[in-house]
């Protein structure tokens, strides 16, 4: 086959995007674990360990730009490199959000409002990320569409969680102590941020599925 070096570059890119995906999934797992257990050392490691992902991200982004500039990919190759280029950004953002989870775990526990199922939301969001990477690896268009639909479940969980926090605040007896009030505000803000970040993790999984669908079928329906 002609252009074997170019074909090798495309194969390598695909494998390395998937490897970065596994790295990011690992960070997400660690972030969720730190939230669940309150393990300070793990939380610190996740919060401060974003540099490795960023290095991968910049290196892979640079390789995509080289492919555009030097090989001028077209057709399926063009869609693959363009999709990968965008997916890298989503992966890097998921790693940032995982680092946030580490920071929240360091700041305090998430059991302020017991009705908020942070662990369940985290698992659901994490599951969408893993499935989006599988869809990219297997070129599975049906899986991309299913991920888009299943994001509604995560959105619903997050919506209910935010409501539960608001309801809890209203029902809670007004705090008279200024220091207590300040702490309560911090905890509530952190809990809401946790829920929002997990929702965003799921949104990035949908983005990955959308770019993957474009890569497979040249169909931009999920991008918009």
């Amino acid at each position, binding site marked *: *086959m*002609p*252009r074997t070096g*170019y*074909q090798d570059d495309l194969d390598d890119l695909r494998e390395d995007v998937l490897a970065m995906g596994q790295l990011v999934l690992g960070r997400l797992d660690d972030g969720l674990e730190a939230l669940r257990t309150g393990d300070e050392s793990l939380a610190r490691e996740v919060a401060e360990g974003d540099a490795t992902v960023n290095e991968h991200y910049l290196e892979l982004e640079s390789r995509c730009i080289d492919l555009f500039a030097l090989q*001028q*990919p*077209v*057709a*399926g*190759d*063009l*869609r693959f490199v363009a999709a990968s280029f965008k997916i890298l950004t989503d992966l890097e953002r998921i790693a940032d959000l995982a680092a946030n989870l580490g920071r929240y775990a360091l700041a305090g526990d998430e059991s302020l409002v017991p009705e908020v199922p942070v662990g369940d939301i985290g698992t659901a969001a994490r599951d969408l990320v893993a499935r989006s990477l599988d869809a990219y690896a297997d070129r599975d268009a049906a899986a991309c569409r299913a991920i888009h639909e299943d994001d509604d479940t995560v959105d619903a969980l997050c919506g209910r969680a935010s409501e539960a926090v608001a309801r809890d605040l209203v029902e809670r007896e007004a705090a008279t102590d200024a220091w207590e009030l300040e702490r309560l505000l911090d905890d509530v803000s952190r809990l809401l941020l946790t829920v929002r970040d997990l929702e965003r993790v799921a949104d990035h999984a949908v983005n990955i599925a959308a770019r993957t669908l474009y890569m497979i079928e*040249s169909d931009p329906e999920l991008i918009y």
Partner: protein
Amino acid sequence: MSETTQAEAERTDAETAPDQPLETTSGETEEQVREEWREYAFDGRTKLAAEDLDVHYSDDHALKGVSIEIPENSVTALIGPSGCGKSTFLRCLNRMNDRIRSARVDGSVRIDGEEIYQDGVNLVELRKRVGMVFQSPNPFPKSIRENISYGPEKHGDLQTGLLARLLDRSDEDEREQLVERCLRDAALWDEVNDRLDDNALGLSGGQQQRLCIARCLSVDPEVILMDEPASALDPIATAKIEDLIDQLSEEYTVVIVTHNMQQAARISDQTAVFLTGGELVEYGDTDQVFENPHSERVEDYITGKFG
């Protein structure tokens, strides 16, 4: 390459071509894909239409049942590997294949609905309407001015020279206007207006090619056929030719054969892909063909997996 030698090269490639799988990127049959692009609708009016066009060189079938409609005032790129029939198709559009003794053309080519393969067609008039620019710049070994005015003078559209002056019928002013207009339209005027009497062979390759385009414009064509017009030029000269093609498409219908797929992607509105065996395999908007070709054979060709 001379026309005869090129025909032989196409013959050789066609003979050695392997059978191609009938696969498409969407899982449809190749016939379904063809039906899709046959229904391809472009904006604007049809300038050229070929229908069931077949070309044989002796016993070799160089072009097989090509049907295509080309819109007016646009750039249509013909791409494909060597020997796929794209230059053969281009030469059908102004009956240049008539010059190859072994060539036999069957089918129809219409310009503005008018059949060009019928008895009584004036080939000189046809080639005025459908001009051609070749791979290697081939200006006449004459002055820049004479290169432009040669055609109109030959056709009797301009009266110049000693006899014309003696008879007081000189069209000198018209000639100067024509030379300036054609050189301006070919984006060459600013570079040569102070040396119109210089021999055209003293110009650079890129300037010579633009002079050939200017010469082509001098007989007021409607269609311009270009057979790899920039393949012998450096990137700067190529960029100027590409800009020029873009400008020309506002007034003319341009059909260009190119081996440079990035060039086809850059400059054309529609792309037609011919593959080995003389078949037109896919035709559509250029962005569609380069982002999402329907045919797997076209995908393999444009991504470099062909072969």
